[in-house]
């Protein structure tokens, strides 16, 4: 384990401890945070979840055109998604969270 790894591990432990201190118990209800498996999910984890949680994505029901607009807006707002990543990302989001997806 490198020094950087140890630093990150320590930081994560601090975050977990801090989280336990400021959070209450489970809420009345919440949108699920789990992302279905599939090509593109790693891009979501690496490029979207830094600024917001998965709940924001999981709760949407958008067409491919709608997801394209959202991804482009997020790229304008600083998401570092390459052109090569964009199409599989929109594809993943549209298939997983399209208008016909199961209820939220």
């Amino acid at each position: 384990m490198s020094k950087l790894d140890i630093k990150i591990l320590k930081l994560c432990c601090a975050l977990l401890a801090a989280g336990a201190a400021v959070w209450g118990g489970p809420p009345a209800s919440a949108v699920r945070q789990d992302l279905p498996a599939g090509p593109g999910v790693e891009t979501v984890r690496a490029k979207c979840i830094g600024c917001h949680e998965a709940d924001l994505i999981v709760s949407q029901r958008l067409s491919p055109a709608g997801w394209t607009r959202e991804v482009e807006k997020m790229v304008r707002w600083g998401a570092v998604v390459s052109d090569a990543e964009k199409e599989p990302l929109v594809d993943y989001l549209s298939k997983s969270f399209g208008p016909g997806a199961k209820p939220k």
Partner: protein
Amino acid sequence: MKGQPRRSRRSFIIGAGQAGAAAGLGRLLPGAGAQAPAIKGKEKLIVRSLRPEDLETPVGLLNSWITPNDLFYVRHHMYAPRVEAAGWTVRIDGEVERELRLTLDELRQLPKASVAVTLECAGNGRAYFDPPVAGIQWEKGAVGTARFAGARLGDLLRRAGLKAAGKYVALDGADKPVGKMPDFVRNVPLEKAMHADTLLAYEMNGEPIPALHGFPLRAIVPGWEGAYSVKWLEHVRVIDREFDGFFVKTAYRYPTKRIAPGASVDPKDMAPLTGLVVKSFINSPLQGAAVKAGAARVTGFAWAGEGHVAKVEVSLDGGSSWVPARLGKERERYAWQSFAHEFKVAEPGSYLLMSRATDDRGRVQPVAPMWNPSGYLWNAIDQVRINVEA
């Protein structure tokens, strides 16, 4: 945590980001499991977005004329900033004779005004639009009523001395954009800003404004959609034209023409949202409730932005027939009104209860609110299906 800004998880996340280790941390945090944790002090709310915090009140808990602070919905675009009262000031500048900077104590020394206001997120009910639109998928509970107290914005603007060129008042809070997001700045036309009921509030329901609701100072623009009531306010700028920023020029706009569901709208055919529309909801019985045959009671709240609720009618038969409900005694210009109706159901079975409000301008809740690209102003006749048991 009364008056004490909460040490939020956000400050740790930002710290992590600054340390260059943000990528992938989401997976390691306790929030990333199947069931998200609640936000402390808001445990009874539905978490729509954990980070930034967007929290909805279950309608069954919206059962008092004043919504307690711990049950009040939360909506913001960016992470809640941590603002300390010490050293904090609000600045008033732009098209004024003299720039002002006031501390919280100085604001408290100004004449104090108080107003009970129903705040509602413009996107409350967005989840019901078809086709679905992007955004927080609010159902019925991004609304609440609180008594806010503070200084009048108009008093401060008069003290600063308005120049003739001033047309709008831009409001900016301490929340900071994430990444390259545009800053959350809103503006209020001068006439509304000068209205005696438009406040810079430092109290919410008799307490210092809680951190998630904008401590230490929040604009209160009564009767208008919630996004005007900017939280963590620190800068008030009088400007000579509409503010040129995303949250004024693009967001919080509504079509000026009737459009088909799913249609795209030319930006020139969009105008800023202002007042809330006429609306009601049933808070009891709840959707899916089992009710004993015999005497029953339906209750809820109705509001109309800057208008007054003239009547609320309820239907016990899916809208075939309507009867007037009694309106509650608590009545203030910008606050919702309770309604109640007692009825008898002899026959067991499934019943669709409905509520429909009408305001003093003759506006009535529609069967189908107009679809619009951002899913604003959902105000359909409310409905709750119950099962009456023998």
